[in-house]
C-alpha cells in the first residue's frame, strides 16, 4: 500500500519533469526563439542582445536547466503582450476555468447517474433507449457547434441567456452544458453498464432476498459500487474537460485560462503558452494522482492487497 502510493508519486514527478521538457521544447519548434519573440523587423544587434539576455546561445541542456530552475520558482518569463510575468496572469484566470470545469463535471454527473441507473433498471425500456441515444449522440456532437446552436436558440431566438462573459449563474449555463455533453455521454454509458453488472451480483440478490425494497437495494447496495469506476473516469477525463474548456471559453469569451491561452497562441506570446501548457498539464497529472489515491481509499479491495 505504502509502496503503491510511493510508486504513483514517483511516476507523477517523472511525468511532470517530462511535461517541463515538452513545454521547454515547444519554444524551439520553430527554430530561433528570437525570431518569434522579437517584433518583426528587429535589427541584428537587437537579436544578438536578445539571444545573449535570454541565454539562447548557451547549450540546450544549460538552457533547460535554467528553465526548470525558474519554473520551480514560478518564473516563466514575461508575457510579450502584457509585459508582466506570465504565471500570475494565468493564475488570475484559473478560478474562472475552475468554476466552469467543475460546474460542467457536476452537471455531467448529475444527469448521467440517474439516467444510467434508470436505464440499467429497465433494460430495453424507454429510459434505456433515451440513455443510449444520449450516449451515442453526446459522444459525436462537436461541443463548439452545440455551443453555437445553444447561442442561436437560447440567446438569439429566445433571449433567455447571456452569450458571453462571466457573471451570475445564467452566464455559466451554456458553456458548462457545452463542455459537459461529451463527458455526460461517456458517463451515462459507464453508469449503465456498471449498474447492469452490479445488479446481477450476489450481494444484490441477497439484499433482495432479505425483502429489501428495490429502490433501497439499488440506491444503497448497487449504486455506491457502481460509482467507483465513475471517479476514475471523471478524473482521467479531466484533461479532455480542460481541452473542451479551451475551445468553449473562446466561444463564450469566458475569462479563463483557455481563452487566455488561445489568445496567447494566436498572438505568439510564447512565455504565456509555455507557462499555460506546463500548468494545465501539471494540473492533469496531479488530478490523476489524486484520483488514484482516492481510488485506494474508496475501494477497500485495493487497500488490502
Amino acid at each position, binding site marked *: 500500500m505504502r509502496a503503491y502510493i510511493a510508486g504513483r508519486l514517483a511516476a507523477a514527478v517523472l511525468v511532470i519533469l517530462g511535461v517541463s521538457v515538452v513545454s521547454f521544447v515547444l519554444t524551439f519548434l520553430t527554430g530561433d526563439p528570437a525570431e518569434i519573440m522579437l517584433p518583426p523587423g528587429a535589427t541584428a544587434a537587437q537579436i544578438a542582445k536578445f539571444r545573449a539576455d535570454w541565454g539562447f546561445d548557451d547549450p540546450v541542456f544549460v538552457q533547460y536547466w535554467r528553465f526548470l530552475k525558474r519554473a520551480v520558482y514560478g518564473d516563466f518569463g514575461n508575457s510579450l503582450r502584457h509585459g508582466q510575468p506570465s504565471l500570475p496572469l494565468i493564475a488570475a484566470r484559473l478560478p474562472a476555468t475552475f468554476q466552469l470545469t467543475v460546474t460542467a463535471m457536476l452537471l455531467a454527473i448529475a444527469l448521467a447517474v440517474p439516467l444510467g441507473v434508470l436505464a440499467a433498471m429497465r433494460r430495453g425500456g424507454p429510459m434505456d433507449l433515451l440513455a443510449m441515444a444520449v450516449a451515442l449522440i453526446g459522444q459525436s456532437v*462537436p461541443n*463548439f457547434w452545440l455551443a453555437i446552436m445553444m447561442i442561436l436558440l437560447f440567446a438569439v431566438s429566445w433571449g433567455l441567456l447571456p452569450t458571453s462573459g462571466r457573471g451570475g449563474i445564467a452566464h455559466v449555463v451554456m458553456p458548462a452544458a457545452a463542455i459537459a455533453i461529451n463527458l455526460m455521454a461517456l458517463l451515462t454509458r459507464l453508469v449503465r453498464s456498471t449498474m447492469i453488472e452490479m445488479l446481477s451480483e450476489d450481494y444484490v440478490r441477497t439484499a433482495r432476498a432479505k425483502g429489501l425494497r428495490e429502490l433501497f437495494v439499488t440506491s444503497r447496495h448497487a449504486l455506491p459500487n457502481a460509482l467507483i469506476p465513475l471517479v476514475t*473516469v471523471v478524473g482521467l477525463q479531466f484533461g479532455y474537460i480542460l481541452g473542451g474548456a*479551451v475551445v468553449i471559453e473562446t466561444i463564450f469569451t469566458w475569462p479563463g485560462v483557455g481563452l487566455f491561452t488561445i489568445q496567447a*497562441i*494566436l498572438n505568439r506570446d510564447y512565455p504565456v503558452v509555455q507557462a499555460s501548457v506546463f500548468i494545465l498539464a501539471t494540473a492533469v497529472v496531479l488530478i490523476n494522482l489524486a484520483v488514484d489515491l482516492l481510488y485506494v481509499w474508496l475501494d477497500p479491495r485495493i487497500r488490502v492487497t
Partner: protein
Amino acid sequence: MRLARRSPLAGAGVLVVGLVIVAALAAPLLATTDPVDQDLAVALKPPFWAPDGTLEHPLGTDHLGRDVYSRVIYGARISLVISVLAALLGAVVGVAAGLVAGYLGGRVDTVIMRLADLNLAFPLILLALAVVSLLGANLKNLVIVMAITTWMIYARVVRGLSLGLREREFVQAARALGAHDARIIARHVLPNVLAPVMVVWTLEVARIILMESALSFLGLGVPPPTPTWGRMLAEGRDYLTVAGWIAVFPGLAILFTVLGINFLGDGLRDLLDPRLRRQT
C-alpha cells in the same frame, strides 16, 4: 454485410460513412458550384425551403455568397484525409511501440509507457494548438500533430494484448524453435492484435475529425480558401443573428460523420472482439 445484419446501428454507420466518402471523392460532381466562388450579389441567401431561398443554393449562401451545400460537400475531403491519415500514422507508431513494450517488457516497456502517460497528461487540443501554431497550419503538420494525439491509445491497447500473447503456447513454441524476437512479433503477435487495432482506429478517426474541426474552428486548421467544416462554423458564428444556416449545416455534417463512424466502430467492436470495451 455480416456487420449490417448483426447490428442495425453498425449498418447505419456503414451507410453514413459510405455517403461521406462518396461526397468527398465525387465532390466536383455533387457540388452545384465551385466551393470557393464568391458572388456577393447572392450573399446570405437562406436555404431553399425559406421564403426567398432558391434551389440554386439548396442550403443557402454565406457572407461572401459562397454556396453552403457545395462547401459542406468539399469540406468532407479535408476532414477525411486528415483524420484517416493521422489515425493511420498514429496506429503505425502506436502499434509498434505497444508491441515492443508488451513483448520485450522491462526497461523498454517502462520508457514507452511513461512517454504515453506524459502525452496523455497534456490537454491534447491545447498541445495540438500550440504545436500547429509553431509549425504552421498545413495538411502535413496537422496530420503529424493529430498523430501525436492518438499514438498512445494504440500503444496502451496493443501493449496489454501482447503482454498476454507473449505467454501463449504458439509464441512460446516459436521461441523454442529459435525464432528471432522481430520475427515472432511480426508473424505471431501482430496478427493477433490487428482486430482490436481496427476498432480503435475507427473510433480514433471519429475523435480526430472532432479535434481537427475544433482546430479549424479556432483558426488553426488547413488555411483558406480550402473549405473546412470547422472554419465554416467559425465564419457562420459571426452571422448567427442574420444567417444561422451558415453555422448549422457544417456542424450537422460533422455530427453525422462522427456519429456514423462511431456506430461503425461500436459495431466492429462487437463483431471482432466483444471483450474489448470502449477505451475511456
